[in-house]
């Protein structure tokens, strides 16, 4: 029993001296292994007198547990040290590039269109699309545009050679023909946005492109008012350009709305005090709009004495140009990945 006391007294220092896991294993074999004093004493328990046996047995168990605790603790320390050393060797320069998965980007125009559409679906609008090669009737006549209107000239509108020459066919100059088509196909109430490509006989310059995107909005119902138009566009401006935006409507002219207006928005960059973005005016011209002309409603068989509505049309490129400081419309159609990548 004294040997045990001695063993216990020396063990902590000896165990702590074990410098690595191998040394600890050797020491463990000596202290608690098959040939250790503990193991031998255990094996000899049967030979002890019956009255001593419980006392010695308890003592052996106690010593063994103490030693094992010391050894286990030391082992966990040494294991951690060993792993630390391995990890230190495993060190790399994380500033080197990672395995970057290639993920593409949605085109800035699609992003813009989707974002605008989502604002209006949030207000309960549906989404429609229509033909890009369109009958002149839908593009002009159904929209109260007189046969002599200059926008019909070949200098403004691209016509296509297709079908019966008496049904003049063109590349739609705005998304507004879908006003008539949608109302022909759907009963009121109508709340719809129509995003899509539109075309003009304009050569590419910083603000013009023969191909561009418009997003048309149309709401026709009982009791739709000019105030509703104003409130709807104000909501849009705040969602898309920031909650601080104010809008104003200025009288304007379109053949298919009456009253007609142009929506101006307080400049997001200077909040109306005047800066480069808004050419010093504090306001940015954004959207053509107005109350649907009764002739347009009557042309599709809607009763203009009971129904009223508003319509608006915005350029998707314009929205993106204003918001992102894009100064040339070519950036939308060159598909330069160095440009596309910038818009997340």
């Amino acid at each position, binding site marked *: 029993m004294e040997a045990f006391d001695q063993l216990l007294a020396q063990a902590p220092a000896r165990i702590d001296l074990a410098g690595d896991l191998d040394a600890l294993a050797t020491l463990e074999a000596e202290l608690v292994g098959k040939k250790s004093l503990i193991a031998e004493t255990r094996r000899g328990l049967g030979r002890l007198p019956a009255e001593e046996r419980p006392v010695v047995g308890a003592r052996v168990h106690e010593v063994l547990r103490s030693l094992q605790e010391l050894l286990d603790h030391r082992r966990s320390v040494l294991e951690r040290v060993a792993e630390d050393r391995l990890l230190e060797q495993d060190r790399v320069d994380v500033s080197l590039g990672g395995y970057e998965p290639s993920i*593409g980007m949605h085109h800035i125009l699609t992003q813009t269109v989707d974002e605008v559409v989502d604002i209006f679906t949030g207000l309960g609008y549906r989404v429609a699309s229509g033909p890009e090669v369109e009958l002149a009737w839908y593009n002009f006549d159904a929209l109260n545009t007189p046969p002599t209107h200059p926008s019909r000239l070949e200098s403004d509108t691209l016509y296509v050679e297709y079908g019966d020459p008496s049904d003049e066919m063109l590349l739609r100059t705005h998304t507004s023909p879908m006003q008539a088509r949608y109302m022909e196909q759907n009963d009121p109430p109508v709340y719809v946005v129509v995003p899509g490509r539109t075309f003009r006989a304009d050569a590419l310059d910083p603000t013009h492109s023969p191909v561009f995107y418009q997003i048309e909005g149309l709401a026709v119902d009982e009791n739709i008012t000019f105030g509703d138009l104003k409130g709807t566009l104000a909501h849009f401006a705040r969602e898309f350009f920031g909650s601080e935006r104010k809008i104003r409507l200025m009288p304007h002219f379109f053949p298919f709305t009456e009253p007609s207006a142009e929506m101006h928005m307080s400049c997001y960059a200077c909040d109306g005090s005047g800066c480069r973005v808004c050419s010093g005016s504090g306001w940015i011209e954004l959207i053509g709009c107005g109350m649907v002309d009764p002739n347009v409603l009557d042309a599709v068989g809607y009763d203009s004495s009971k129904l009223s509505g508003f319509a608006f049309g915005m350029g998707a490129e314009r929205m993106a140009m204003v918001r992102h400081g894009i100064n040339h419309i070519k950036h939308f159609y060159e598909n330069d990945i160095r440009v596309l990548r910038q818009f997340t």
Partner: protein
Amino acid sequence: MKLSLRWLKEYVDIPTDDPLEIEGVFASLGHEVEGFEVLEVPFSKVTVGRVVEIEKHPNADRLRFCRVDLGDGDLHEIVCGAWNFETGDIVAVSVPGAVLAGGLEVGVRTIRGVTSHGMICSAAELGLGDDHSGIMVLDPDTPLGADFAGFVPFPDVVYDVSITPNRPDAMSVIGLAREFAAYYRTEVRMPESKPVTIDRPSPVEVTIEDTKGCPRYVGWQVDGVKIAPSPIWMQQRLRASEVRPINNVVDITNYVLLELGQPLHGFDLDEVADHKIVVRRARTGETLKTLDGVDRELDVLDLMICDGRGIVAFAGIMGGEESEVTDSTSRVLIEAANFHPPSVMFSSKRHGLRTEASARFERGVDPNLPALAAGRAAHLMVELAGGEALADVRDCYPSVIEPWTVDLDVGEVERILGVPFDRDAVVDLLSRFRMEVEGDSPLRVTVPTNRPDLTRPADLIEEIARLHGYDKFPETLPSGPAGGLSTSQVRDRRVREIMVGLGMHEAQTMTFLGRSELDALALPDDDPRRAAIRVRNPLREEEAYLRTTLLPNLLKAVQYNVSHGLSHVSLFEVGKVFLSAPDPDDPRVPDQPIHLAFIAVGDTGARGLHSTPRATDVYTSTGIVQALFDRLGLQVRIRQAAPAGFHPGRAAEVLLAEEVIGTIGELHPAVGRAFGIEGRVAAGELMLAPLLADDDWWQLEAPSTYPRVEFDLAFVLEERTAASAVVQAIQAAAGDWLESVTVFDEFRGESIGEGRKSLALRLVFRAPDHTLTNEEVAPHRETIISAVAEVTGGQLRGV
């Protein structure tokens, strides 16, 4: 149009001088100001003086030495190079210290040995015109010694106002003055339009042959005009409106056009043969040399003004050379007519002639304005050109156009605008726009004839809203529609998201193609994609056709990126193509299906130092399509094929429910080269609609919790046997427990013989309800082997 604020203020009181505030009023009335320019007095310290003596310059023949009285008791000695003035003339004199237009400071200078204490100024030196030819001789009543700044039309503000096409009445100073008068609740001061006349019969005969094209023609004769420059104030106003001053008579016609909005023409009456004016359509073969010096061949729809000999002017657009007013003109015939807008528009477009006159007639000029405007011009010719206006005026106006009425229900105003307006408010607003309102319900509104845009209640409601102020309406939202994206619209977005997730950038390319791009695709002559719809008036021949395929423009976009140094480019586009077949939903228009196309070149895969790039090839295409359809939950079949434009051995058709919906693969190397792209080009083009079809909701298949049994099989096959055929044979024969079958090796070698290949496949079996044993699976193995042999002729390898 551009106009001078001083001019505008002559007709209406505007209670502010702040240019920005005035701009705001223009804009709130719907007349957008594109910009404005503040014009200050262009000189300082210029005094009115009288030339007292003129002597020859002792040392220079071309110069004169003058003594000038500036009213200060001294005689100022000034050397002057101009010869157009005499002793006693009143002139503008800049004394030392004065600053002239352009910033020149006047000092005491010695000119050829004679000291000059200032300058006698020309119009150009004072910024009052372009005339450098002589000094400016002033009105003899100009007070001596006064600061000349008090006699020039400065300071001023010139506004550039954009007038919407529905408002021809506002294309004039008086028209805009009326808008301001309505806004500020005041009256317009009309200019004097009743000349002092003399009773002498006029020999002029006016005949209108085409009263539709010309509803009215007023001819007013003014005799004895003396052609000279017009006064500075008039020149300044014309110049502000970007009209070049010519002489007093021509300037007066232009001035009245800008002032009242009635285009006028001045004929030299002595050049009008037989004093006859006939308004008629041109005849085939007739020509006219217009004032711009161009000989024009006329169309039978062109409306002309003729005299006893022939054509003298293009009605409503431009005069002819022969009868124009010249320096020797003394008898003037003022033409103030009304022309049918479509007629003027037709001729103006056809001949590419746009003038201040045509711009107004195209939109519609008040038919009741000509007499007033002709009177105004005659008055000015009497006052400013010394003319005698004859009282004997021609006015052909066969059917007088009267003001019309519009019935307006007051309740309708609130229904559209959303804000209550009572009768008094409506009457107030409309009458400020010069409308007469009677009655109660409805209101009977009489519209003046200069407002052709006001014919319906909606038009009047706009006027009410405009004058009330758009900014006074509240912001409200319509109540409670229900909407959102349709299933196919959601799936459309999902397609794009998957493509983006597959590492492709979305592109938006132009809708137009040139013939050469279709040729470059190497399509056979009868390929429907060659039957592209042509644009009748293309901007350029390279943009003369509508795309039948997205690939050419996408290839150009890829090439653009490659040429800017990108080693890997992978683009996709979703967009319409245009086919010559009719649209199934609306046969009046061509079919315009939406396609999804993609192109990838260069090494693909993860980027980064330790990443291994992978070359792009046909498997890039098949992999993209497989992944896309898999993520959409669609069973796609890729069937080897040789579609036009593709590599004959590395392309396929894409089938969905046994319908071919597109082609994918590697493009033919010649096609890549035609677009300037080297190396393998992975590409594909699919119809989008089949991918968006609205199918039933997917029902969960819970994954089995039991372990799997797997084994490998290798088959020796003929070279041309498709791996997919083997896989399909296995799938058909393997029974319900087959979880997956994957080709993991492809081998060719002597051991299996020439023209053959070996495919190794891993088959995984798993039951949903118990642990499979090898014994259970073994019979399937045998069935599979014989099925593969039967379907493909493949023999189990190594048996």
